[in-house]
């Protein structure tokens, strides 16, 4: 098997751009993406529907060619060395990997053979994956008869058949009920931790990007607007500390003292003071003691950590949650 010991990024894009033409209109789905992903990273592309996440993934997996710019995956150019890219990656698309009139076992076998496993290896590997994804008893039924959760597990099993060094997952948990979603996330995390598989996934679920990925790349209108760990993205925004006082006068007096906290933005609202600061949860206890000593005791305190939605809202002025109309598990059953 190919040994990608090349140092440097396993995924690299330079000015990656894709336009679509619909009638007379040109849609710039991805605009000049410059990106590097190192071996063993677990990266989430986060953004609203239509942000360009899937288009980027489809270029990296050789499904569509870039309009301009270039990309390499596992050291191979996605346009000139498509065959080599395809051998190096696993892909779980938005749809079902297994054809609906086929059987799960046959489809895993087919994928294993396509990747050059011998017949006996392919059979063993198929059994392993069926067992690992709890699909053994459904393996010989037509895929059309499986539940949404079972089909999604089958999709992932097929994507992993050749133990790819790089795995792409496009909206892996869309249409899954919450528990299946958590299971899937656990499997993805283990794959990354135990086998060192480089994983790139797209999601519009904030919780998923937050819980799963070591690195979150926020994409909006075809461009990267933030790229860091979820913790770093959030801590840059700071915690919200809401303090209540006995009277509006006390609040005004307290706000003057709270203003001394480095980097704090302070807003007074009646008898309430709201303060956003980088390490709000660490400074809050000291602040409360200080205010009590100054004669304006705090009657109630709330500390709220920022969410990735706050990050997105801060960057774009829009909330990601407004786009999340499909958070229910409707499509699963």
């Amino acid at each position, binding site marked *: 098997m190919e040994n990608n010991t090349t140092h440097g990024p396993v995924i690299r894009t330079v000015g990656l751009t894709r336009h679509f033409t619909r009638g007379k209109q040109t849609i710039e789905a991805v605009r000049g993406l410059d990106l590097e992903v190192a071996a063993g990273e677990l990266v989430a592309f986060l953004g609203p529907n239509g942000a360009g996440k899937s288009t980027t993934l489809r270029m990296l997996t050789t*499904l569509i060619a870039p309009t301009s710019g270039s990309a390499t995956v596992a050291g191979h150019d996605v346009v000139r060395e498509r065959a080599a890219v395809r051998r190096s990656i696993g892909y779980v698309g938005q749809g079902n*990997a297994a054809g609906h009139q*086929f059987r799960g076992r046959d489809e895993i076998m087919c994928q294993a053979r396509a*990747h050059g496993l011998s017949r006996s290896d392919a059979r063993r590997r198929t059994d392993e994956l069926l067992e690992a994804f709890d699909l053994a008893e459904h393996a010989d039924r037509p895929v059309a008869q499986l539940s949404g959760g079972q089909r999604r597990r089958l999709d992932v*099993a097929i994507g*992993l058949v050749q133990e790819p060094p790089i795995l792409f997952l496009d909206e892996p948990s869309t249409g899954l009920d919450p528990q299946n979603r958590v299971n899937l996330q656990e499997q993805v995390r283990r*794959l990354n931790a135990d086998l060192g598989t480089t994983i790139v996934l797209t999601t519009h679920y904030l919780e998923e990007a937050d819980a799963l990925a070591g690195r979150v790349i926020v994409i909006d209108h075809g461009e990267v607007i933030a790229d860091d760990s979820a913790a770093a993205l959030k801590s840059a925004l700071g915690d919200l500390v809401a303090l209540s006082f006995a009277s509006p006068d006390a609040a005004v007096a307290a706000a003057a003292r709270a203003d001394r906290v480095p980097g704090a933005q302070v807003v007074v609202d009646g008898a309430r003071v709201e303060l956003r600061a980088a390490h709000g949860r660490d400074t809050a206890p000291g602040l409360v003691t200080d205010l009590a000593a100054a004669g304006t005791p705090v009657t109630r305190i709330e500390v709220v950590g920022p969410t990735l939605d706050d990050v997105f809202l801060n960057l774009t002025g829009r909330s990601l949650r407004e786009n999340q109309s499909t958070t229910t598990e409707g499509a699963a059953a």
Partner: protein
Amino acid sequence: MSISLTTPAAPAAAARRTPVVARPVGVLADIGNVLVRELQPVLRQPASVLFAMVQPLVFLGLFAPLLPDTGDGSALQWFVPGIVAMTALMSASFTGANLSEEIVSGSFERLLVSPVRRSSLMIGKALREMVPLVLQTIIIVAVATPFGFDLHVGGILVGMALLVPFSVGLGALSLALAVAAKEQAWVFWTVQQTVIFPLLLLAGVLLPLDGAPGWLRTASDVNPLTHIVEAERALFAGSFPGETVLYGAIASLVVGVLGLWVGVRRMNRAS
């Protein structure tokens, strides 16, 4: 709503047990893999193919009696090879119909990202359509023989082999059409029907074109199916006229190569 929510065992740990040794896949193994995949639903539900067997028998039963009988079974001798060629035309042009479902569900996309060659994908899918064709031919010949059809097994085998490139090429075109028309299913059927019937009528499958006006004869001459049907008629009659068979084989190969070329190009642009 799915209830089977038992937490699966660690997949990553399980993934370690079989060392995955991926070797380069040869073209034939690649095609074989696709063909085996495509045949599985047929093997598991043979009834689906049996139903397709009826159509050529309907033509044979309802149309053959209308042909002028010269007394020695020559009407059947003339008609049977044409029906076999027609069946090949029909089944190959349907190849893309099953693809629409795979495009919508996502399994086609998975195959496009896999190392399977585009050409293998198309050849494998088109060859799958040859399997019912072979079964249909056996049934047609078995039914026609007691009624005066002169059976020449060797000629029929060569005739079937001659249909392979034609079926693969037409199958590839049908797949390309399905990819191009993926957003509107009616486009696929409209184009398929618009192309199939002129090809069929101009090839002289149902009626001889002997008394046809000049323009119709010219149109018939540029129809590859005409030459294939003529070769089939000679072969099914047990004769082997070199020139006729050669023209038939060339026509079949031209369709095969052209179809695959167009098909691979279309699939490489598939989005």
